[in-house]
């Protein structure tokens, strides 16, 4: 093998290995399949089943967001689309508080430090 080609291959392989080792690259095995199943369940005739699927997707957390965004590119009944949008919206946004006192109360309860972001306008932009 030519040295240049070997070098490029080693670089690509190295990047692939590093990518796999990155904590963000790791996804629970079977997640994609689980998400597909739950998205189908969002269209179940029984409300209870739809609710369960909705709650389970939220419980699975932020890892499902890329999968749900892909699902949103396809066609779904209106309720399914609304639910998908709602779940993605909740999971992919920082849960900003606007009341510092309330935030301090939660911080005292959880032991977490505060991150106060101060800027012009509100979370979704400014009128």
């Amino acid at each position, binding site marked *: 093998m030519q040295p240049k080609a070997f070098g490029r291959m080693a670089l690509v392989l190295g990047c692939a290995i590093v990518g796999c080792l990155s904590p963000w690259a790791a996804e629970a095995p079977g997640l994609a399949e689980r998400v597909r199943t739950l998205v189908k369940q969002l269209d179940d005739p029984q409300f209870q089943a739809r609710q369960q699927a909705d709650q389970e997707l939220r419980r699975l957390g932020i890892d499902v967001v890329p999968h749900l965004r892909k699902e949103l590119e396809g066609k779904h009944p209106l309720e399914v689309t609304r639910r998908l949008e709602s779940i993605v919206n909740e999971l992919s946004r920082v849960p900003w508080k606007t009341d510092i006192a309330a935030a301090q109360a939660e911080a005292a309860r959880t032991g977490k430090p505060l991150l*106060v972001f101060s800027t012009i306008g509100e979370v979704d932009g400014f009128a």
Partner: protein
Amino acid sequence: MGSNLMRTVTFADLEVVDHIKKHFVAVWHNQSPEVYSSEPAQQEKLTAEQIKAYPQGGGGGNVRTYFCLPDGRVIYYLEGFWSKDRYLAETDFARDLAAKVRKAADTEGPALVRKALEERCRQVADERQTIRAKHPGEFAGRFVPTEVRKREAALGLLEKTLKTSAGQVCQAVRPIMDKLRAENIRQGKFV
């Protein structure tokens, strides 16, 4: 634009969102609610080139992150827009610092924070020096916004914000926010 970029780039990144959710209680403070209301508005769509061209650390005092202990005392102030990697690095620094302060005695807290900020400032200054030493040709003559110069300039802004932090160590964040808002009104900013 720095504010817009924080909304649409940094805080839209899933890794940043996940990190903040796990490790912080997050507060959004509007510096000028009298002028900018809570009605959602259309955000200007930025091109990839615009995003790339905007300087790290840009936006000045219109874009501020205060890291505080659970009781609201400031331990670190970060000014400006920062993209994911740098923002995550700074949140990690703040989180570690908060953990150290919580373990220390009350009276030791401020000194511990100041020392940590000074040390970080030194690290950043060293990083700048390393860049200058590695690329002396880039720093001879007038400023041209190459990637090297932009990186060094960003570290300069980070160094500046670290020094500003020292003046706010262990101050309560709420009066700082109230004072900022009052100052904006007094100056007639954003009216």
